[in-house]
């Protein structure tokens, strides 16, 4: 579903992704963790070309992303993206936030789009907030709207960029519950997160990134119980002792 072949990216002189190779199967849920500045957010932002890459190839569903001829609008409409800071449109109601792209990009009729949006809001547990504005919602509710906005495009892949990092602790669970449900239903997802409970529960694989490289990847139990690399051990010992 998603394939990286020797992907390299620089921000100026800063080499942020180094020879990344990975292959993610349809229906797979992958968690990427690692210290800040390790390139994990950049990695998933390259998948929908929010960030261009300088070397290598990225394929989504066998379509090469980093090619001039690729229809990026079409590609992006198949990839849901959830931001750390939600990035909801503050001037639009919750419902309008969800239906904007289906109507304008996928050219779906408004009635159908709204019906679909209400179903999705129901699914993320906030059907009664459709006519509210983002400023009236809590962080957890905002993030669930953002997930509904992603799902409204009926994507093949959902990407999550630290979806719970900007949330108050008591709101993290409500967002994770929605994500767990998605993973169980078989959505292909890549999640950048430090929620290790989530990783253990639903991830098929966990990647550890450091200094622009994927240092280690393994099934969650093996990853957490028997990390192979010193760097992984050091990282895990730091975050786990504080849990």
């Amino acid at each position, binding site marked *: 579903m998603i394939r990286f072949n020797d992907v390299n990216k620089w921000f100026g002189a800063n080499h942020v992704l180094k020879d990344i190779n990975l292959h993610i199967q349809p229906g797979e849920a992958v968690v990427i963790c690692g210290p800040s500045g390790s390139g994990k957010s950049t990695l998933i932002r390259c998948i*929908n070309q*929010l960030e261009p890459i300088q070397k290598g190839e990225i394929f989504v569903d066998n379509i090469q992303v980093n090619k001039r001829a690729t229809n990026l*609008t*079409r590609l*992006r*409409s198949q*990839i849901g*993206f959830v*931001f750390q*800071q939600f*990035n*909801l*449109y*503050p*001037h639009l109601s919750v419902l309008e936030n969800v239906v*904007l*792209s289906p109507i*304008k*990009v*996928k050219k779906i009729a408004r009635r159908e789009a709204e019906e679909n949006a209400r179903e999705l809001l129901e699914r993320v547990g906030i059907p009664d907030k459709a006519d509210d*504005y983002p*400023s*009236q919602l809590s962080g957890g509710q905002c993030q669930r709207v953002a997930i509904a*906005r992603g799902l409204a*495009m009926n994507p093949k892949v959902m990407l999550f960029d630290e979806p719970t990092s900007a949330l108050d602790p008591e709101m993290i669970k409500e967002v994770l519950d929605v994500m767990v449900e998605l993973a169980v239903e078989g959505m292909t997802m890549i999640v950048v997160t430090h929620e290790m409970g989530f990783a253990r529960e639903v991830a098929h694989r966990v990647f550890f990134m450091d200094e622009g490289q994927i240092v280690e990847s393994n099934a969650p139990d093996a990853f957490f119980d028997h990390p192979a690399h010193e760097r992984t051990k050091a990282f895990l010992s730091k975050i786990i002792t504080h849990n």
Partner: protein
Amino acid sequence: MLSHFNFRVILQYLPLFLKGLWATSWISAISIFFALLLGVLACSMRLSSTGFLKKTAGVYIESMRATPLLAQLYFFYFGLPTLHINLNEIQTGILALSLNSGAYIAEIVRAGIVSIPDGQTEAGTAYGLTYLQRMRYIILPQALGVTIPALLGQFIVLVKDSSLVSLISVLELTRAGQLMASERFMPTEGFFTVAAFYLVIYFVLKYLSTLWQNRLIYREP
């Protein structure tokens, strides 16, 4: 002071003032319309990554902001006919007012656009919207929302600046005051009435901008 006012003469000149008020209103309205169009266009050119567009918009904005409106007005009034472009006085006035105000509006809108967080553009991009769609549905509604007070200020400046077209003999509000002042030698009454009518326009504009703002700006809980 009011007790010395000759209201009878003001009343006598009222039809002229109303004619002037009407002219000022529609000249300003048309100029505001074109200035907004020009402003948004110049602003998007200035923000574009194409060097040529960026520079063209820069030259336009700087030259308009750096020179007096009166000089621009005379420049178009006397200059265009030598290029065999014949506009009447009113058209010349609208042209100068729109071009001048458009440059200021471009900068106001630009400030509004750059104040919108990058995340908004990223969200729009990630969800497949094209540049124009992002502008139309995400960025401009928010940018215009926060710039409405500044835009209102610019519109009011334009209405007051429209008094300058009286100097190329367009009969508008200020011209009506000048006529009364010179025919009856009553400058106080004449220009006081003119000022009062400008105040009326101001309140109408302010009311309209509040309506507009309520439609566009962030909705607070």
